[in-house]
């Protein structure tokens, strides 16, 4: 009896965790729909690698103080911005900010990662180099605003 309940609870937990992962189209499926950067702007990709650890913790990601998307396991979105200083922040148990520069025509990558907190896990934004960022984004699903069809 107890074994049965435990098994059912485990199934429910796994289903909940799977549901917590990003379910949008893969990067390869929407690559052609991603618009070219406008002249005089830079692009910031924000992503989170697929992992069951802390999957239920999905805070909003703020870029320059405005909600730009969500940190979801296996998901990515992008924001086009004027060149200059950029602040990326997430707020879970504590607020963690990342400051970086963005030049016109430049693409940069920010990974959100799960860390250990006092009561719940924390999500941190981290700046990553373009080679690692592009590779990771290629393996994630798009969770940003709907894109116009090419």
């Amino acid at each position, binding site marked *: 009896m107890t074994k049965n309940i435990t098994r059912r609870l485990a199934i429910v937990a796994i289903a909940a965790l799977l549901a917590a992962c990003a379910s949008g189209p893969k990067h390869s499926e929407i690559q052609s729909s991603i618009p070219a950067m406008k002249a005089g702007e830079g692009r910031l990709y924000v992503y989170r690698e697929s992992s069951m650890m802390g999957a239920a913790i999905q805070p909003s990601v703020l870029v320059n103080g405005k909600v730009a998307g969500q940190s979801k396991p296996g998901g990515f979105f992008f924001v086009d911005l004027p060149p200059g200083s950029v602040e990326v922040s997430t707020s879970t148990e504590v607020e963690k900010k*990342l400051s*970086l520069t963005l030049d016109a025509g430049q693409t940069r990558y920010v990974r959100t990662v799960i860390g250990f*907190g006092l009561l719940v896990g924390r999500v941190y934004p981290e700046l990553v180099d373009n080679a690692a960022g592009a590779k990771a984004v290629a393996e994630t699903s798009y969770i940003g605003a709907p894109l116009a069809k090419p």
Partner: protein
Amino acid sequence: MGRTRQALMLCLAAMLASGCASEVKRAPAELSAAQPEQGRRYATTLAVEARPESGYPRSIRAGTEFVVVGRVAQGLVLKPTQTVLTIEGAHMHEAYAVHRDGQLVGFYLPVERAYAALPLPASMPLQEKNAP
């Protein structure tokens, strides 16, 4: 009972302290052009291990390429060309290496326009790279 409470309080304090990293200590710094080095490219010939005061160590791999983007009072400011450099405390900041006399002496934070010194400079031998 008193001891148990004391132990619990100590545990709680330690946990809270580990969750509240200190802010990166920095001072305003003015970046000026570095003549004649501006735009020159250098690569580290050895790996560099830096231990900022905020407690998050940083390592720079041997062969990492930098370009000179200017100078601050503390040294030459080198921006990585293929990778990124950050320093971390309560928050994370993009950083450029500040180099003087063969050593990494601190970091220049381009957003904050500030300099964060290393408590102990780290050896950072560089070799100039010829244009590709």
